[in-house]
């Protein structure tokens, strides 16, 4: 009971160490989600609106990549960024940047695959209408992305949810260095193994609140989006 109370007090009293970890976690996950959105949404749109040999295989691959094992992604990035790896000179291993890169790779397939499906469905529905309005290719992509905005925001939130709760890849490439690359999930793993349960539980409470907030956000976006469905 004491441990629970201590955990709650860490959260409610605004413990600086705890909230610095929360801050880094949010910065890494938000950065990764943003990068994944910038790359993933247009990629999804491009695949949705293009016809080329092997397209179906790419769609299957993209869908499969939604379930990429985080530890494998972490391992691959570790090998690329390690001192003897091809990108070792960048000196990114065990930095927050490396964590952003791995999470971007995990989140991007989710956003790209969901964007592809949404935009393809929308395109089937609007194709002739946009053609009759004389809409060119660039405006067409912009129109579809805007009209798919509610589904895309939901995809973004799903991506952020995955990034925020992820531990396997960032512990490999970030190294869990105190005050530098230690995030909520990696700290919970470490502090639990050390027996420092109040800190682990405090971070667990914050993480659960974030996941809950993301889900409430997704629900709210869906409610607003439903008003604009055909």
């Amino acid at each position: 009971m004491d441990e629970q109370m201590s955990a709650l007090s860490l959260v409610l009293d605004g413990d600086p160490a705890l909230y610095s970890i929360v801050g880094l976690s949010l910065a890494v996950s938000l950065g990764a989600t943003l990068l994944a959105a910038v790359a993933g949404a247009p990629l999804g749109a491009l695949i949705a609106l293009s016809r080329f040999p092997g397209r179906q295989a790419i769609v299957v691959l993209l869908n499969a990549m939604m379930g990429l094992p985080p530890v494998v992604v972490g391992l691959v990035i570790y090998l690329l960024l390690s001192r003897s790896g091809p990108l070792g000179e960048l000196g990114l291993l065990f930095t927050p940047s490396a964590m952003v890169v791995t999470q971007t790779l995990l989140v991007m397939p989710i956003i790209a695959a969901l964007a592809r499906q949404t935009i393809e469905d929308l395109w089937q529905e609007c194709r002739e209408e946009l053609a009759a309005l004389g809409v060119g290719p660039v405006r067409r992509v912009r129109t579809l992305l805007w009209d798919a905005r509610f589904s895309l925001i939901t995809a973004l939130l799903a991506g952020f949810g995955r990034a925020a709760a992820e531990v396997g890849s960032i512990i490999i490439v970030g190294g869990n260095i105190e005050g530098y690359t230690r995030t909520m999930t990696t700290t919970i793993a470490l502090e639990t193994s050390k027996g420092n349960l109040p800190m682990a539980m405090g971070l667990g409470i914050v993480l659960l609140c974030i996941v809950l907030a993301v889900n409430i956000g997704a629900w709210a976006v869906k409610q607003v989006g439903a008003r604009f469905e055909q």
Partner: protein
Amino acid sequence: MNMKDSHLPIVLDRVSVNLGGTPILRDISLRLGAGAPTVLIGPNGSGKTTLLRAAMGLVRPSSGAVRWGADGDSPAGRAALVFQRPVMLRRSVIDNVRYALETTGIARASRDARAEELLCLVGLSLLAGRPAPRLSGGERQRLALARALARDPEVLLLDEPTASLDPAATLAIEELVRTVSERGVKVVMTTHDLGEASRLAGEVVLLHRGQVVEAGPASQLLANPVTDVARRFISGQLVL
């Protein structure tokens, strides 16, 4: 407008269209000139919608050619098509019209006033802020008309604009068609409602099984059809 720049007449020169190996239009030759609305009538599956799509360039003829004006092979920017079931963009009613205005390249500063003017014309001013997909069938048709008129078309193609609408919505659409036509826009529309054809048409074209069976002034064709197919269609005995 300079005659050289006009999109009229629209000439279909021996146009045939096959879709998925099935002939939909067969050797259609038509000349649609300026003036009162031309109404394409015919039973379901006679090719009315495909003819509009082919004219608009949305379906490529398997043989023959469509010409717009003196030497155009496409309607460019001065024609608009309203579908039987228009798709509403997922934004407000007025934003749907603003979008159509944007596609015509009209200056941003003029868009709002023009959008409001068009909504007033189609009687949707009070619904300007409503999400367009929430509109009823008749309201959707009116919004689709406003979007089409945003292109300031010389030619307006309407595919069964009153199909499945209630009588009040039908009359509202017909009134709009009349207004637009009186403003000098050439209206080409399809319907299988002979009453509507007689109320709106200057000229009627009867299609059956992808071919033009009979064409001529509405008053003459609807009252005194020449061909047996036309007589059967007008008397309600031709369903397919």
